């Protein structure tokens, strides 16, 4: 893999506001990369910095090994799908798609427009005017308009946030297929962790203008390097713990669960002997229903809260020695009853699913 975009030591100030803090990242050729974070974390500013709509206060932005400082957006090999889609209301679909071809006499207009519309599933929509389109169709026009120019990078600024849930899930799959098909590097900005996990090769999680963690989706989910990353991506139970030995194996005594030994790999940022936090995802815990047996560790508790989702039930189970109840996600498999608040129950856990953080 060759690197296509690299940012080193990028800082951005808006007046006194420090919007980007020492950003270092490399995005590879053909990668689907996501910038994930809560609103106001600087992810859109970072995207606009790559697009050329914002300059940097310090640091270097390189695209294809070329420093793009001072290069305006219209001269960068990037194209963007805007959050509002920014479809020109005075032009038809075909004219919108062909907008960027004015300075590209090498491309045959009508063939390219037809091909681009085919690619996004809007065959025959060319003559429609912009206000006749639904949200999903506008988004496809925006995609076709950007991809027709064959950019090196396609920048997507929360492209799915305006769509309803069904449409969003469908477009997630279509975007992934499209990206594989055209082989262009995609950079997606989103606040939706599920969207980022589903679509990306790699994700940078941002908080307050900084990158908190940059990893592939599975590592990010299973081995978050901080509490805020763990809590932003999915749910996680946290318990106090004491580390008694830290080597290739770590001995840890967890409040409520007891002593156990885990791999050093389960402490993503390393750990010293002493106080620590242990995280465990709700779906890696289980409730032992009547008649079921397990070879794993068990602990008894009392159901504190029940949230029924249809396919899933989320239980809060109170166990001795821990202040906050454990959140447990159970699939509603055949024969499993939904427990009531106050019922005594047995919780199953496994040391292999623990994450140890300082």
């Amino acid at each position, binding site marked *: 893999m060759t690197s296509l975009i690299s940012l080193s030591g990028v800082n951005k100030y808006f007046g006194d506001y420090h919007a980007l803090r020492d950003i270092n990242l490399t995005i590879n050729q053909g990668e689907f990369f996501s910038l994930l974070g809560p609103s106001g974390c600087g992810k859109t500013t970072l995207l606009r910095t790559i697009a050329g709509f914002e300059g940097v206060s310090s640091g270097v932005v390189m695209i294809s090994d070329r420093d793009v400082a001072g290069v305006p957006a219209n001269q960068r090999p990037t194209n963007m799908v805007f959050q509002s889609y920014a479809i020109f*209301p005075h032009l038809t679909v075909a004219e919108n798609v062909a907008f960027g071809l004015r*300075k590209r006499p090498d491309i045959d207009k009508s063939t390219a427009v037809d091909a681009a519309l085919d690619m996004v599933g809007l065959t025959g929509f060319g003559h429609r005017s912009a206000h006749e389109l639904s949200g999903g169709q506008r988004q496809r026009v925006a995609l076709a308009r950007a991809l027709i*120019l064959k950019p090196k990078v396609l920048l997507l600024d929360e492209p799915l946030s305006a769509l309803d849930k069904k449409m969003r899930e469908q477009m997630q799959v279509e975007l992934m297929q499209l990206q594989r098909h055209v082989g262009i590097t995609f950079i997606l900005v989103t606040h939706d962790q599920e969207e980022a996990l589903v679509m990306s090769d790699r994700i940078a999680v941002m908080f307050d203008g900084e990158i908190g963690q940059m990893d592939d989706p599975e590592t990010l989910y299973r081995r978050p390097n901080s509490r805020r990353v763990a809590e932003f991506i999915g749910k996680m139970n946290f318990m106090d713990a004491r580390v008694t030995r830290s080597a290739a194996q770590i001995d840890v005594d967890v409040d409520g669960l007891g002593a156990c030994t885990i791999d050093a790999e389960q402490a993503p940022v390393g750990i010293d002997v002493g106080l620590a936090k242990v995280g465990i995802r709700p779906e890696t815990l289980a409730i032992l229903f009547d008649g079921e047996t397990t070879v794993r560790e068990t602990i008894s508790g009392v159901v504190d809260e029940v949230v029924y989702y249809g396919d899933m039930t989320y239980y809060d189970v109170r166990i001795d020695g821990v202040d906050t109840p454990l959140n447990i996600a159970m699939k509603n498999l055949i024969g499993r009853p939904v427990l009531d608040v106050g019922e005594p129950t047995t919780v199953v856990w496994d040391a292999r699913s623990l994450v140890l953080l300082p």
Partner: protein
Amino acid sequence: MWAKLTATEARRGLLMISPPLIYVLIMLAFPIGAIVLFSFWTQDFMTLDTTFTLQNYREIWAQPIFGALLKRSLFVSGCVTAVTVILAFPVAYFVSFHVKPSRKSLWLFLITIPFWTSYLIRVFLWKVILGYNGVVNSGLVGIGVIDEPLTFILYNVNAVIITLAHAFAPFAILPIFVALEKIDRSLLEASQDLGESKFSTFFRVTLPLAMPGVVAAVLIVFIPTIGDYVTPELMGGAGGKLVANMIQTQFLALNNAPLGAALAIVAMLCVTAISLMFVALNRRWLRGRS
């Protein structure tokens, strides 16, 4: 049930619009009706001959003075419209794109300041500015740019155009400003993202999207200036009189209300025809582009 409901709703609607409707009827429809009626009558010295005749229209057609005045009025309105709209666009653009949002209402407020004084006083002020010993002339003579005061800036068509262009500037700025405000700024970024410079973005995105405002500005300036009476009366001198001054002369000095009425109708029809043509051309142009 439904019929009853709609009946009461219709009645309520009628009731609601009836005050303005009555007002419009009294203040607009009746006077226009009266003018139309008058234009088909003739003045017989002191009495009004109410037999239907096209005599007035024939006279307007036959006597070259009326046609010349009408042409001059159209020319002056055209010039005023062009000057006003072309000068108003940069102002509206500046306020919409370069003024901080929190300051925009202050700017709009400043633009309306000329309205604080009466139209008549503003016209007199221009007389002071443009006069033989006025601000412009004494200033230019004082710094030695010219030896003798300029005479082509007062009591002629130029003076009328300058004064009207100033008087109508806010009417042109405001609709263009509103049209520019409505443009989604991400469209301009999208255009740049797709390879256009800021300059070409203006012609490919900003201007086409601002056209409704420009059309409105053109109509708002063009239509009332054709019939303007005060400015040509005070600033136009002998060579700068327009059709409205002739209408006034016919009604009062010459005591020929029917001919004046016919002139007013002809002027009105000219404005209507030109405005409709302009709107139609614009529609086609806009549709041709989209």
